[in-house]
């Protein structure tokens, strides 16, 4: 104690001398606000190392929306909830699927979840813009290194703008990074489709030219993913030739073959040939992110049924907020041999595994069949939906305790099965039926279903549903093909649920203009006074 005080006293004396020194020297230095433990933004955009770390930052930003556990982790599942393949059972996810949320300007779901998409993707856009501008202006950098940085940032930007366009339609695009000086030059009008697609094409074409098929690290953008995205953009423009060419390139590259069986597609960390782009997680690791609870939202709460406890074989922890509807289940049941429902992509049967509570007449390993999806009896069908309805296993982390809803499973964004279906559609539109059938049947046979001999859009959409449901692309595909309103009217949720929702049947709430999401009012308030809201929302 004595020593310490002595130390303090001497320190005070030192400070005294310093203070006298300071007053005679420059005050400006004394009052400088310094970055003592933070990285400066300037560093990020003014050196090759800074730019590379900013590129890594883009991947982290891109992951954020999946880790958002607000609203019971619903936000990353909003596009899925709004598709024609799911039934909203309970929880926030069901509020989106039954159009109580996210379908009008005033509701909370728009102000929260819909707004999150707007901010999330625009943030990626701005940081990509800053990296691209920084890399283009930097003089002292190896050309290959510059192109790698530019390519990854451009993929991120294209992916973000493309998503924003497909969700919100009336979007504003810019390649200028935001600065304090221009932050209040708010957009006055939406950008034209021509502007949007010109930028998407040029960004992706640049990336295709400069990226390798085999990226340096798993999880980064590679040429396959860039081509896949380019093909999707081309489909949106009805540019069938471009789409076909890009799909062909990915498929024939040899780098992105389908895995031999459906069992491998979502196994492990997804680091296999079929994956084009995946979000990476790692439990208890710096940079590994925080967990997502998507599996919990989409696997039934089967353990509430007698004789079942949470287990890996049954799909871990589930709350059953949203899951496959009858339409989707029937599509998968079309071919009894379809392997996708055998606990690979989807789980159709939860099995008894708790000897202590087995109901009479049941054996361990028998499928749970206590409940019936009655068309009218709410007492019956509620139990069925919550406990027994088939679930989705595409986000299931089999390494965590089965009681834990927090999962660190890598999330599949693009994979070559979708490239095959894009290729099938493009070749079909080009009247190249045999190629189209070849691609469609590649997906079918891999799933142990019989090949087909004729092809039409419905067949491709049906196969897309079976193969890709709940991966986030279905809603976009229907919107692009003009089928969204019709398919939703025909299939959304299930009718017994639709009729039991206290606020009314969502099929009666649904309008065609809902193919564009509302731009949240709080964003409209920050845009120019005449910035156009999407038609229908007022």
């Amino acid at each position, binding site marked *: 104690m004595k020593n310490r005080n002595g130390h303090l006293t001497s320190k005070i004396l030192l400070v005294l001398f310093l203070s006298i020194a300071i007053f005679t020297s420059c*005050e400006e230095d004394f009052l400088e606000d310094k970055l003592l433990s*933070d990285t400066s933004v300037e560093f990020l955009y003014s050196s090759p190392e800074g730019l590379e770390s*900013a590129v890594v*930052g883009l991947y982290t930003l891109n992951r954020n929306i999946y880790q958002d556990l607000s609203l019971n982790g619903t936000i990353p599942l909003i596009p899925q909830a709004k598709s024609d393949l799911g039934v909203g059972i309970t929880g926030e996810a069901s509020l989106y699927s039954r159009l109580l949320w996210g379908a009008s*300007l*005033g509701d909370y779901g728009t102000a929260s979840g819909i707004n999150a998409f707007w901010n999330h993707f625009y943030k990626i856009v701005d940081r990509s813009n800053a990296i691209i501008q920084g890399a283009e202006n930097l003089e002292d950098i190896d050309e290959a290194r510059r192109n790698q940085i530019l390519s990854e940032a451009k993929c991120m930007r294209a992916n973000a703008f493309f998503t924003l366009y497909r969700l919100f339609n009336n979007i504003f695009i810019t390649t200028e990074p935001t600065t304090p000086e221009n932050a209040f030059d708010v957009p006055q009008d939406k950008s034209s489709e021509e502007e949007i697609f010109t930028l998407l094409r040029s960004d992706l074409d640049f990336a295709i030219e400069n990226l390798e098929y085999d990226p340096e690290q798993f999880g980064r953008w590679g040429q396959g993913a860039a081509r896949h995205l380019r093909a999707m953009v081309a489909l949106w423009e009805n540019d069938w030739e471009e789409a076909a060419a890009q799909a062909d390139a990915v498929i024939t590259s040899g780098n992105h073959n389908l895995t031999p069986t459906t069992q491998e597609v979502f196994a492990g960390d997804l680091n296999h040939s079929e994956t084009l782009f995946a979000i990476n997680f790692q439990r208890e690791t*710096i940079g590994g992110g925080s967990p997502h609870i998507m599996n919990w939202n989409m696997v039934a709460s089967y353990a*509430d049924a007698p004789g079942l406890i949470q287990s890996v074989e049954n799909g871990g922890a589930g709350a059953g907020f949203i899951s496959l509807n009858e339409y989707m289940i029937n599509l998968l049941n079309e071919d009894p041999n379809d392997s996708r429902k055998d606990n690979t992509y989807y789980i159709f049967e939860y099995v008894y595994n708790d000897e202590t509570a087995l109901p009479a007449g049941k054996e361990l390993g028998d499928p749970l069949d206590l409940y019936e999806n009655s068309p009218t009896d709410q007492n019956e069908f509620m139990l069925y939906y919550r406990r027994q309805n088939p679930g989705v296993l595409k986000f299931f982390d089999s390494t965590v305790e089965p009681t834990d809803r927090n999962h660190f499973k890598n999330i599949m964004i693009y994979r070559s099965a979708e490239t095959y279906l894009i290729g099938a559609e493009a070749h079909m539109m080009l009247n190249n039926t045999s190629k189209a059938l070849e691609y469609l049947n590649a997906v079918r046979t891999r799933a142990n279903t019989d090949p087909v001999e004729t092809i039409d859009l419905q067949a491709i959409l049906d196969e897309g549903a079976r193969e890709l449901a709940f991966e986030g692309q279905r809603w976009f595909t229907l919107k692009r093909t003009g089928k969204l309103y019709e398919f939703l009217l025909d299939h959304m949720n299930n009718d017994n649920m639709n009729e039991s929702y206290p606020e009314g049947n969502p099929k009666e709430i649904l309008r065609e203009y809902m193919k564009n999401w509302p731009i949240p009012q709080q964003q409209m308030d920050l845009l120019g006074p005449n910035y156009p809201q999407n038609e229908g929302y007022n």
Partner: protein
Amino acid sequence: MRYGILKLMVFLTTFYGFSQNKTITGTISDEMGPMAGVNIIVKGTTAGAMTNFDGEYTLENVSDSDTLVYSFIGYLTQEISVGDQNVIDVTMQEDTQTLDEVVVVGYGTQRKSNVVGSVASVEVDEATNVPTTNVSEMLRGRAAGVQVNLGDARPGGSSNIVIRGNVSVAPNGNSPLIIVDGLPFDNLNDVSPDDIASIEILKDASSTAIYGSRASNGVILVSTKRGRSGKAVIDYHGYTTIQTLTKNFNQYDGQQFIDLRREANRNRFTGEYLNDENIFSPAELETIENRNFIDWEDLVLNDAVIQSHSLSFSTGSENTKIFSSVNYFTQEGIIPNSGFERGTFKLNIEQRLTDKLLLSGIINYQNANQSRETGGLNFTTITPLARPFDEQGELEKFYLGASNTAVNPLWDQRESTDETKINLTDLNLSLSYNFTPNLSYTLKTFMRNRNTDRGIYRTSLHSAGDEGIDGLAVLSNTLFKQVLVENIVDYTPQINDDHSLNLTAVQAFDEQDTEYTQLDKSGFTNDALGFNGNATTLLNNIRDVSQRKLLSFLGRVRYGYLDRYLMEATARTDGASVFAKNNKWGFFPAVSVAWKMQNEPFMQNIEAINEMKLRVSYGTTGNQGINPLESLGVADDQPYVFGGQTVGGATASSRLPNPDLKWETTTTLNAGLDFRLFNNLFEGTFEYYKGNTNDLLLDRSIAGTTGFNVIRFNVGELENQGIEASLTSNIIRKDNLRWSLGLVFSKNRNKVISLTGDLDENGREIDITDIASGRRLSVGQSINNIWLPQYDGIYQEGDDIASSGNPLAQPGDVRVVDQDGNGQIDDRDNVFTNTDPDWYGSITNTITYKNFDLFADIYILQGATLLNPVLANGELWKGAINGIRTKYYTPEFPSTQYPRPKPDTHLHLFSFAVRDASYIRLRTLSLGYNIPQNSISKIGFQRAKVYLTGTNLFTSTDFRSYSPEQSPQNGSETTFPETRNITLGVKLGF
């Protein structure tokens, strides 16, 4: 001892005798004990003596006919005829008439009658009645214009003080500046209540401008006790407090909760109930069967004890004065595992080195431990249908049944440690040199080190540390260092009797450094060592270093003419590091005048008026309450994993820097009237003020299209306007019975005057949402508001629902006003509700009867609004969670006040949950007994007092919570409840 306005003169005895030339001895004391240095002279002679350290004196050659004169500065002079006495003991009385109270003001002291600004003194004895270390709470209701908002009721928690309304929206923009013994403190609670000698609150610009930069929210000046000349005095104060839960709502009990759940799941169309199996889990069904319902509050909370001991020592000679104290305070929380323990040591020394040189030093050392319960503890909304214990009475981990992953909060509570250790060292040395009696120079240096060490451990059984994590520890350390140096020159030229002048000049610099380190670890080999054990995995590491500096120059002139007209002018210029490069400096001038009317010749004859002073001030103060680096571009660390391998990454943070950030300034006009009337029967102050804050440091949302959320901006103007009154009435002033009644009243209105000036399509100035606080600012509205659709009751059967704002609604749903009548409810239907109180105040009664004294303090706050998140929680109305019990709507018994439970989240519950939070509270009731001196002096005591105090005994409010100032829940956890306290204490003087 400023409060002894009515101290009476006693002990005047007159005896006549005949003996000559005897020796008189005696002891002279005041209410604190023996007094050294008291002058005794024989009237009309030069013969005399002085008391020694024990207050004793001996005077020879005195005759019976002599009169002795006892005098001491600041005390009433007493004359006593000797008569036949040989021993004359005298109790000196403080002179409350001529000894004008001296109040502490910025950089100096001043006679109260000469104060020109708005300065309120707090009655320290009344304030320290509350058993807590939260000094802010002690100021509640003690001074007009000072609003105290409960921050955290936990042991060792704090409250927020707002002086004359919110002048700012900046994150640290509304805390008053705290000056303790002339030194800025970052935390008022670092002062031990028993060490406090006086508290002054500076409210207007003229009194605060001398503190320039951080002073726009007012200044709280605390002086601690100092040594005094005379015999050594030892004081002891100890008390014990029992804390019990206080709340004004009920939860659903087991059966009521079951009914709620059943009602919620009734089919809306057919009215049929669903089967229990559909709506209760198997475990819940079991509980319903055996009816073992759980009362969580009962299970979690315990009555808890506070103990405080404080021992102080004071002594002094002509050249040396010492005050030293040791305090020990320990408080258990009513939530087990929570508590606070603090030991403090203080030493105040003044040493006169030469005639001209005075050295003074203050040393504070504190050691505090705060422990907290496990995070997320909730006993408010948790279901009563749980099974926290198994048949053996052991805790069950999964208390809602095996299929539910929710973990028993009692289990987590058992498996959790959260300890914070705070070590504080203050060292303050000042050196004063008097060149002449009129001119002095003071060098003041101050150094503070606060080390805060926090360790959190969740064992391998805790829900956050189990399932392969094997124990989770978070270790954090905050090192706060502050250095302050001030050079002060004070000059008081002697002109003549008519003019008085005082000049002060100060140069100061202040530097504050904060270093924060955090490590998150997991994978402990065993739980035995807690967070001190060795871990195998590093989960996270944070290092955060920040610094703020302030460089200041200031000057003040005080001028008085004929003791009637007073004038004061202050100017200060501050440079603050947190602002942008070219905007560091701010200039803050202030001027004030006062007129002491009672000294005018024409007022001299008005007996009823003892004092009447009118004062007006006008000035500017500044606010630097933002965080460092907001004018610079900062990148966030954003690492990622590629194929399981960590790769470093970074992105620009969501805050866009503003390279033009500058000072926020508040200009205040203050007019006040101080008065004492009818021979001091009434005394009080009325005040009016208007403060306008310009260039608000606003955290403003920016368009999502920019990729940023927020930028700090200087924009707009805010106005606070209010009136204050404080009145003390000494109703009864008898020897044995005294009763004084105090009233404090404050009313403030806060209003946004202008914002960016951008207009919306209707030509109105656009509103701005302040991101950090979530406040929506709108011209003409208070900055403390709720912006939601307006609650309009509950839809009833037969209402015209189809043409209302919510055509899909059913009877029993929440109805809100569709302001624009477009048949849908959205942002455009939102209205502003001011959450600030209309007024607040207190009524205090002090009654002294013989040796008893009674103190009662009633605090009143009217017109405040709060949103109750428990009522707004849709899960409550689904019967999914417990919460505030209401007579909810059912088709059979339709309620017009509460909605119908239903299986989905109600719309507009937030509007419904906006509730009046006015209250009246009997805050303190204290009864004390002073044990007569003659019965204790034999055992060595000079003074002894015992007292019994009740705190928060009675509260009348409609706001359903544990405290009328706080929501029952904060996020998903229960807010730490306020308590009702009963205290038994003793004060002893040796």
